């Protein structure tokens, strides 16, 4: 472990986060909403610390960043992003305590979208934009952004990339990692701009369009409105946002290939096909379930079901209806969606469809083996065989995911929360969804959770976003042994 390199890179990354504060600073000047100076102070503190880290650690050797160092850099960068991101909230007085500000900030960067704010609309515009921007940056990844912009990272960039996006399928779109990162960010930016345009055309204000697009594409789910998307009660906005949540839940490599002219790519990708199938089936089930019981028109039921299922399965967390009032079957389906998640390589969280597919196939293979003890069978995705080490890594991921989920749930219930809230709050944060059930249901928020519980949930958000291994490995004694 070479701490010089680690801290220098964290210094550089802080400067990135810092520069992104310039956008809310500009907005606060335009609206003169009184948040200009708090944001400016946050800007200065962040740049000060960033530059100090940068200056005290003189080195130019980034090429040999090891996998270990990569994991430390990524984890610490995300923590410092959460820390610096909380400064505008604190300085402007929008959020009173550090615990709450850090929770809100990391909930933004990890694209969870779990909020502790009661009256969102009362916040200054600058702070609202910053809140959305944290999600937008966190969605494609602050590290991926830095790899795209900093050319000197070289192979070291690859280690960081793998630590931030530890997807089971490595999809290097370009020969160079920096080009791959650039390509992903360009696709991300392009789709975001299209969404802003479509929302704006439909009559949403430019500011709200931007905030919503910045929170849709990373599957974040912060809204500048107290009632989230339900505020507008517009079928058009809901349709646009549903489509873009779906796009955000698809592997961005597929978007890139589609834009390059390979139009059949979505239908050919096995994970994508199954993801769309699951989504369609669940929307259908929920529509049937809520038609007649909650909504009296089939159109209305479909509109709510499609939006809410897409929102939860892609781990976005926008809300158009209080699904906590829906019949039990629909609630259970949404609860399970929090675990399934979107596709690998998307901005969504949770277990991810590809892992579920492979785990199911693994289960079937074991059954098959009981019938034919001598059978040799490889698990395939599409037509490609999946290496056994990938399978065992997925098993490890799944066990850790469930294990950490259980530990966190026990912890939450020990704090005195009811059963439903304990389960839902952990599922919604470790899966980076946002709204859950019970006390943290769609029309409530996380303010009432005890402070200690908020820290546990903050940790859940971080391990959920970095897909567990990157963070957990730093807690293993073997990691620190020479």
């Amino acid at each position, binding site marked *: 472990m070479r701490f010089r390199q680690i801290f220098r890179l964290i210094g550089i990354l802080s400067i990135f986060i810092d520069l992104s504060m310039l956008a809310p600073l500009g907005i606060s000047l335009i609206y003169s909403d009184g948040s200009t100076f708090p944001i400016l102070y946050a800007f200065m503190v962040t740049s000060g610390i960033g530059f100090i880290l940068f200056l005290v650690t003189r080195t130019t050797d980034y090429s040999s960043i090891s996998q270990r160092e990569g994991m430390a850099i990524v984890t610490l960068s995300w923590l410092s992003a959460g820390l610096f991101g909380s400064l505008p909230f604190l300085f402007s007085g929008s959020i009173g305590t550090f615990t709450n500000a850090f929770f809100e900030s990391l909930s933004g960067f990890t694209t969870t979208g779990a909020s502790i704010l009661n009256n969102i609309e009362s916040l200054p515009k600058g702070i609202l934009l910053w809140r959305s921007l944290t999600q937008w940056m966190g969605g494609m990844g602050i590290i991926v952004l830095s790899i795209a912009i900093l050319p000197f990272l070289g*192979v070291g960039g*690859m*280690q960081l990339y793998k630590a931030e996006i530890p997807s089971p399928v490595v999809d*290097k779109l*370009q*020969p160079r990692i920096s080009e791959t990162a650039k390509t992903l960010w360009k696709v991300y930016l392009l789709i975001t701009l299209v969404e802003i345009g479509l929302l704006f055309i439909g009559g949403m204000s430019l500011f709200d369009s931007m905030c919503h697009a910045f929170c849709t594409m990373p599957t974040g789910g912060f809204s500048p409105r107290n009632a989230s998307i339900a505020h507008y009660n517009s079928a058009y906005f809901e349709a646009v946002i549903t489509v873009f949540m779906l796009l955000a839940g698809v592997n961005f490599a597929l978007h890139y290939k589609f834009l390059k002219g390979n139009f059949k790519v979505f239908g050919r990708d096995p994970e994508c096909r199954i993801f769309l199938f699951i989504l369609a089936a669940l929307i259908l089930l929920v529509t049937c379930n809520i038609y007649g019981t909650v909504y009296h028109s089939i159109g209305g039921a479909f509109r709510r079901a499609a939006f809410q299922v897409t929102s939860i399965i892609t781990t976005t967390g926008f809300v158009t209806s209080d699904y906590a009032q829906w019949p039990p079957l629909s609630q259970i389906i949404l609860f399970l969606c929090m675990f399934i998640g979107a596709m690998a390589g998307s901005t969504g969280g949770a277990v991810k469809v590809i892992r579920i597919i492979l785990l199911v196939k693994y289960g079937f293979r074991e059954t098959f083996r009981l019938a034919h003890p001598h059978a040799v069978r490889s698990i395939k995705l599409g037509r490609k065989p999946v290496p056994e080490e990938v399978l065992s890594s997925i098993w490890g991921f799944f066990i850790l995911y469930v294990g950490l989920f259980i530990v966190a749930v026990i912890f939450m219930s020990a704090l005195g929360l009811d059963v439903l809230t304990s389960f839902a709050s952990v599922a919604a944060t470790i899966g980076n969804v946002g709204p859950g059930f019970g006390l943290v249901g769609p029309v409530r928020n996380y303010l009432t959770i005890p402070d200690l519980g908020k820290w546990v949930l903050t940790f859940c958000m971080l391990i959920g976003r970095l897909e567990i291994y990157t963070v957990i490995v730093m807690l293993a004694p073997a990691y620190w042994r020479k």
Partner: protein
Amino acid sequence: MKIIIVGAGEVGFNIAQRLSEENHDVVVIDKDQSKINHIQTVIDVQAIVGSGTSPSVLTEAGIRETDIIVAATDSDEANLIACLYAQYLTDYITKIARVRNPDYMEHTEIFKQDFLNIDLIINPQSEMVNSMLKLIEVPEASVVIDFVDGRIKLIGITIKEDSPLVGRKLSSFQDFEHALLIGVIVRGEEVIIPSGQDTIQPKDLVYCVTRRDEISTLFGLLNVREEGLHRIVIVGGGTTGLALAMSLDKTNINTKIIEKDSERCLELAEKLEKVVVLNGDGTDRDFLTEENIADVDVMVVITGDEGNNVLISLLGKALGAKKTVTRIEKLSYIPLVSAIGIDTVVSPRLSAIRAILQFIRKGKVVCVAPLKAEVAEVIEFEALETSDIVNTPLAEVKFPKEAIVGAIVRGEEIIIPRGHNMIKPHDHLIIFALKGAIPKLEKLFTVKLEYF
């Protein structure tokens, strides 16, 4: 430039590493999943599992936008097929293939334009024979590399304790600076591009450029006794041994070749005129003594067994052979063997890597020679009219610190430069540089603006 490399073996891996470090877009194809996993974590390239002879894999690798394909798998046939498909899929692509089977080298014209149309065929064995012949020509040196058709030689010499240069600052060499320039000093693990303030120490390996006719002056200065070359022993009568022996057969050097297998000895004897073929075991001490190894100037050990090569060389040294040339396959062993007293190493893989890199960099870079564990490099650049460096005294050119101009070649004239010398358009420059300085150098030498 985008480059596809087929085969992630040692040759493919090293080439990929060098090219990726020089900011080329590199795609590596190999059948072996574990090799691909490894290469992906170590170097910044796109790595694809698949067969390089499959058109669909080549298309997936983006062959249509690729400038160069390097086929460096272990199979000659696979390499040739990969090049054929590459040609079929992209007409203008440059194709480099490694071909090892000597049978294929008998009619090289089939590789040329009208048939296979391969731009460069690398035969590691003949590359290696060439470098061995150069080494034999200057037996005192541990490395000899030719520039400008051999008119300039780059020579690597280990400084002995009793050398008159020991302890002197390089700036005190004014009197013979016109003749040679020390470009790189290797001291243990350290590689230094020296400035005038650096001193030479015993056991340093120094690389210097000099004119061919000044070699004896150089040796005089370095107090290396030039004894000429009279006796050579080759241990190992494989294809390389035979090729080397056949080249030496034409000279007056007294050559012996030792081979274990008696039938192979008969074949050797049929093909060789003057060279003495001996049937015996190179590891046999008595046999070597009997053949008077003590008087041998150069002992070339190129049997098929790497471990034996090292042992035979050490034995030869112990028995009094003045210099040994040892064949080592595995690149990672090369830095180790010099530590145990083996002077000079040849490696077919290293030769192949050098030849391929030289070819790829062709154009503004004329010739390249990697030095000492690939940390430093000697490059022959052509100075273009539009480049920033021309018509400025060298002292004022913003040269990277890790690089030094070793020689300027202007037509027939060869200048060993000093600060006041100027570079003129179309001069060829011989530059020593550490790896890190190479992209900067390339920038310096590329055209400022393309004029049409």
